[in-house]
Structure formats: C-alpha cells, structure tokens
C-alpha cells in the first residue's frame, strides 16, 4: 500500500499504529447508552429495552426525520457553514405539500379544484419548495459572502413566516391515503437509511464530496485549486434544503396534516446529531456514518427516557450534556492534531 512513497528512514516506520475509524468512539457511546437503558429497564420497570422490535422501530422512526435533515446539515457543516433554517423549511414544505395532497373530502381545501392528485405532485412540490429555500441560503452566502449563520437565520425566520401566511395560520388537513402512507410504517426509516447511503457514497467517492471537504478545510486554497467555491456552496445548501423538504413531506404525511408550527427546533437537533457524530463546526471534518450514529444516540436517549417513564425535563438535560461532551471531544481531538503544526 504505502510502498509507493519513499520508505521512511530506518527505525522510523517501526511504530506504525492501528488506527480505528473515527466513528468507533461514538459507536461505543451509543452501545453504552443502550446497555445502560437495558440495565435500568430491568431494574426499574422490569422489561427489556433492546429486545422489543416494536420499540426499536418506533425509536428509529422518531428520529428518521431529524436524521434526514442532519444528513444535509452535515454536508453544510463540512463546508464550514451552518444551516439554521431547516426546522422552518420543514414547516413551509409541510404546508405546501399538504395543500396539494388534500382529498376531495376536505371541506375547505386550499386548492378546491386540485384535490385527489397523484402522490408525486405533493412530494415534488415539497421538494421543490425545499430546494428554493436552500437555493436562497446558498446564493446569499455565495454572492454576498455574509456568514452562513446570518443568512440561514434570516431564511429561518422568513420561511416560518411564509408557512403561517400560506393558509393564514390554518392547518391543512384531510390528506389522501396514498400521501399518508408515506409517513406510516417503516417508510420513513427506509427513506432515512437510503438517503444516508446515497450521501455517504457521494461524500466519499465523488468529486462533489472531495470539493465539499476541500472548501471546508481551506476555502482560499480551494479557490486557487480551481474549485468554483460559490457555485459549489449553492449546490450544498440546495441539497440541504431538498432534504429539509423531504423531512417536511414525511412529517406532514405522518401527522396527516400540515401545520405552520411543525419542525420547531429541528435544526438544532439536526446540528446536534451531526456534531455528536464527529462533524466539526470549523469545517473540513465530518462523515455521514457518524451523523447516523449521532441521530441514533438522540433516538436512544429520547425513547429510553420515555420507556423508563422519566420526565421529559431530564431527557433534555441529558441531551444537552451529550452535545456539549461531543464538542469537547472534538476540540480535544483537534488540539492533539494541532500540536503537530
């Protein structure tokens, strides 16, 4: 493997270590948490936590939507950016998609003449709205060079406003069965895992992925190396927007309605999942596999506390602590690397 490179001087190659993939650490955390709940389960409620297929499905189901958003957010974070707009985009896309998914039974449909449409119409409408939101994010960042934090904060507020304005605050209900089916059963789980696989491959094996990492590692060097930094960022934010749109479609399908208050704080959970999974807010570092594990950690904590019938307050306290611990671990890793320079 390494024989291509000049052999290190004698005595220098002896200590070649075994390097674990960076996910090993958080995978261990995931297992430890699951085992802790298993143990507490037997002690406190006399039940198994893990050996209950239904609970596991529900657990992943609960976090699938967050996971899909987190996949987009991870890519944004790798470029050194951040996306605060995802939660609001979920609400807006949920509203728009639901409005094209109403059945003819609906009394006051948003578009009375457009009911009982085939399911692809609302889905495409939702994805398109997500894409537009992402495009706005990306274009603002690329064209005006305002910090991603500010640009996406603006879109976050605006998109929530649009979501409320769309029906003057009224929820959109009475959706077709075909649409509702998208959110039921294991469909969201399958979509989450498929999306993860696609972007895992995209980040690791395609030009798109290589450029994404390069921009995050050193934007100026990326520019000089001939990467169109601006248009690449537009693509990355648009992908994140489309994934938020997908999350919006699944959210409304699962609730069988669209509401302007949907997706509240989802952006923070998604960022947390990415960061727990090892993505570094300073850019250049992050992997989809890590984000998936980060998402599952959030899922285990949420359903673990519900399972133990412990108040939701504690759940939030623990979640917060895990996020901070993950960032501290990231800092520590980085500091160890930086002593090298």
């Amino acid at each position, binding site marked *: *493997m*390494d024989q*291509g*490179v*000049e052999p*290190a*001087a*004698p*005595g*220098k*190659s*002896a*200590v*070649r*270590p075994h*390097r674990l993939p960076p996910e090993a650490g958080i995978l261990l955390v995931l297992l430890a948490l699951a085992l802790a709940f298993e143990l507490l389960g037997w002690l406190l409620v006399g039940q198994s936590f893990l050996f209950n297929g239904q609970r596991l499905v529900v657990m992943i189901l609960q976090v699938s939507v967050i996971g899909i958003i987190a996949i987009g957010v991870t890519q944004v974070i790798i470029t050194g950016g951040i996306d605060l707009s995802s939660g609001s985009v979920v609400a807006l896309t949920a509203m728009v998609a639901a409005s094209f998914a109403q059945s003819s039974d609906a009394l006051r449909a948003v578009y009375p003449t457009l009911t009982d449409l085939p399911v692809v119409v609302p889905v495409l409408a939702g994805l398109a709205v997500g894409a537009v939101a992402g495009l706005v994010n990306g274009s603002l960042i690329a064209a005006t060079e305002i910090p991603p934090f500010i640009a996406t904060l603006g879109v976050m507020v605006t998109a929530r406003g649009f979501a409320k304005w769309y029906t003057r605050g009224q929820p959109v209900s009475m959706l077709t069965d075909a649409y509702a089916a998208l959110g039921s059963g294991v469909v969201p789980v399958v979509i989450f895992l498929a999306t993860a696989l696609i972007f895992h491959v995209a980040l690791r*094996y*395609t*030009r*798109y992925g*290589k450029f994404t*990492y*390069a921009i995050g*590692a*050193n934007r*100026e*060097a*990326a*520019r*000089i*190396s*001939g*990467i*169109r930094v601006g248009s690449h960022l537009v693509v990355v934010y648009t992908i994140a927007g489309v994934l938020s749109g997908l999350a919006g479609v699944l959210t409304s399908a699962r609730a069988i309605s669209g509401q302007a208050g949907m997706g509240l704080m989802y952006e923070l959970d998604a960022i947390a999942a990415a960061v727990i999974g090892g993505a570094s807010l300073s850019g*250049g*570092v992050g992997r989809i596999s890590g984000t998936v594990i980060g998402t599952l950690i959030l899922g285990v904590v949420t359903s673990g506390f519900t399972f133990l019938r412990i108040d939701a307050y504690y759940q939030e306290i623990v979640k917060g602590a895990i996020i901070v611990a993950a960032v501290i671990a990231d800092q520590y890793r980085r500091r160890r*690397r*930086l*002593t*090298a*320079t």
Partner: protein
Amino acid sequence: MSPEPAAAPPPLLELRRVSKSFPGVAALEDVSLELRRGTVHGLIGENGAGKSTLMKIVAGVCAPDSGELRLAGRSVRLSSPRAALAHGIVMIHQELNLMPSMSVAENIWIRREPLNALRLVNHRELNRKTRALLDELTIDIDPATEVGVLPIALRQMVEIARALSYASQLLIMDEPTSALTERDAERLFAVIRELKARGVGIFYVTHRMEELAALADEISVLRDGRHVGTSRAGDLSRDALIRLMVGRELPALPAAATAIRGPAALRVRGLEVAGELHEVSFELHAGEILGVAGLVGSGRSELAAALFGLTRRTAGSIEVRGTEVTLDSPQAAIACGLGFVTEDRKDTGCFLGLSILENLEIAVLDRDFVRGGFVRATAAREACERMARLLRVKTPGLDERIENLSGGNQQKVLLGRWLLTRPGILILDEPTRGVDVAAKAEIHALIAQLAAEGTAVLMISSELPEILAMSHRIMVMRQGRVSGVLERAVADQVAIMELAAWTRA
C-alpha cells in the same frame, strides 16, 4: 572540545537524552544538547529531521516521551507554553500564529495589555509601547493596523516583535527568515546580536547556511531525529555540515542551460490592478525561467494573483501562447495551463485536516480522475504516489494528515499538486521557503528540468542567490511596477538591489 574551567556556571539550558515519537515516526531519539547564555546555537537538519519538534519541547508546546530538561542546572518540566514563558522561554514558530482580525498592538501584547484606572485596556499606552518595540526593529507599521492586511514578511516581523516583547532569557527562532527579504533579515540579525550581548541564549533553526556563518556560535546537526554532531561555528566547512546533515553528497546545481528561448508562452501588456500594479508588461517564453525579484510589497505576489485570476485587473491584456485570454478566475487560468504555488502554505496552500493524498490530487481531480462524477480512487492514488516519490516526500503514507508533515515536506506536496496538472506556465511564489538544502537542490533541479522540457516558469523569490542561480532572466519590481529586466549574464546582487530599492536619487 576545549577544556572547561572547573567551576563553569551550568549552561542556560541542557537537554538530556530527549526522545519523542508520533504515531508512525520516531521524531527524536536520545538528543542531548546545551545552550549557553549569550550565544546563538544554530540547529540544522533536513526537512523532517526533528528540529521543530525539539524546539517545541523546549517551548513547552509538546512533551517529550523521555529525557530531561535542565534550566540553569535545575531540572524542569514544561507542561505548557505558559509554563515555558514563566521560565523566560519564548518561541517564534515556523508557521505564523497571529490573529488576523486583531491589530498589530493587540497581537503583540495579548494577555498583557496595559490597563487604565478603570481596568480597561489603555489603547494609547498600548500603541506607544508597540511603537517603541517596532522602532527598535526599525519596522514601519502603524500599531493599529489589522494584522490580516499585512504582507507575510511584515507579519513575520510582528511575530518577532511579539517574541521580543517578552524580554526572555531563552529565545527560539524556527526559520524566522524564511519569509523575509535580505534587508529585513539584516535588521533581525542586528537585533539578535544585541540580544546576545544582553546574555540571552538563542536557538536558531534555519536552512540557510550563510545565516549560520553570520550568526551562530555553535551549530548542531540533526539527522532523522538523532543528534549527529555539534561543532563550533567555523570549525566545519559548509560542505562538511551538509554532509553531516544529509549523509550523502548533494547533486550539484544543474548549470541552468542557457534558455532555448521558445515562443512566448505568456505576454502581458499594460497590466493594471487598482492600487497594486501599474503598467506591468513582460514576456515569458516556453522553456524559460523568469526570476522575479523585489522587496516585500513591491507587487510580486500581486502580479501572481492577477495572472491567476484571483484579483480583477482594471486594464491591460494577457496573451497565452499567442491568443488573448481573460484569466478572470483560477478555473480560467488552470484551463489555460497555468499553475500557481502560493507563498503562504498555511493560509492559501494546505488543506489542513485533510490527507496528503487529498492535498495532492485536488487540482487535477476534476480533469484527470473523475468519471461520471465518481473519483477513480486507484488511478488518483497511483499518480499521487508517483509524484510523492518523485519529490521524495518523507511520510509513512499518503493517508497521513498534511499537518503532520514537516514544513519542507508540506511545500513539496504543494509543488506536487501543481506538477500533477502538467502546467505549461508555472508560477512559483517562494518555491523553496522552509525547504532544506538537499530538498532545495532537488526542487531546483526539478524546476530546471521542467523548464528544459518546455515549461515556462515565473519564479518569485526573496532569496537573491536562488534567483541568480536559477533564472534565465530577472525581472525586478518596485512599487507595483517593473523597474527593470536583467539578462542573466549581467545580473548580480548589486544590480538587482539597485533596481529594487525604494528610493533612488
């Protein structure tokens, strides 16, 4: 060694059998050294020999695996740079460590800002102290300037000023002059002599042999992490030192073949960039190495940036191989066959955090190694391994992170990145900055060979010997203008400096 009198005071610093390894590399093995008060101890060795690592141990930046540090006869443990500072040990790092968005004064006095009665920062006093310090170094910068806007040489001077502000007893300089012009370097040397007279002990790491001759009292040589010898300055000839350092004979510099002056590869006419360049016109021929000399701030790097489409030109035309081109973006420049090795490794060169492989392949990825959006990983790796071998990059493997390489090896990787593009026109900005003598000779040979094969090379360098040895013609810049072009035959240091100097009566 001369017999020491019995009651000699203990040396300022004594290193005893210091060892340090990193995953995959034994960076230092059993190194023992002494530094006496009021002396300059030169430290040389090839890229990756362990010089910076040793100095970082002395400065408390990293901890040795084993061995002992004795300061004035007492054993000490330096667990952090702060602990080292408390002992009066200050280090000027090889890579700059300044905060670009803060002012020069704030950078220098960070954590030690003078306060007023309300315990707020006293900016007047802050700027006054900075002014005094900068005057001592005869640097003309406004203390309130943001560091980020300064050219790299001035940033280096700021870094030096910061180190001096600590009034330390032990100063470490890791390649302080690699970004400086000879003139700035001379000022630094004057300061060093002054510090020496005050009894400060100085470790001085460099790849420039001439500097050691001028400054050092003792010289130690590291090779592959081992201390292979210490001698009094002047006891060993330059060649003997180099032999110690590399353990073999160096390839002689290829007497650059007189330019087979091919057709003009690049023709620049009346190039203007607002506030940076004025009426720059020149021609660069295939197979030619055109050296670009000038003082810091003379517009050399700005010229490179304009040619590569990084800044917008306000007037002028550029022709590549006879066709007029716009060159308004790096993509356009690369498409025209230009390559550009920038001067600042850390800011605009390396992708820190990514692997050597990823750093090498990035500029050609799209053109050579992507099919249907997917990267042909094996082909890319093979090409990069070939390049790493050609440049003799010293590393356990291409998956190593680039920040784990020594400075000189990072430079080779960046050069490799652009050689992979097989550029017709190669712009090099300080191509051998921080590169050891052996590697420098290799890189020089490589550049000469590229030119012989028909590449047009524009080589910016602040090292006049390098410019004089390598170039077929030398273009001198001053205040954003071309102040003259010298043929190799008539060029010498004096002629260049005359054209470069700011004030000419």
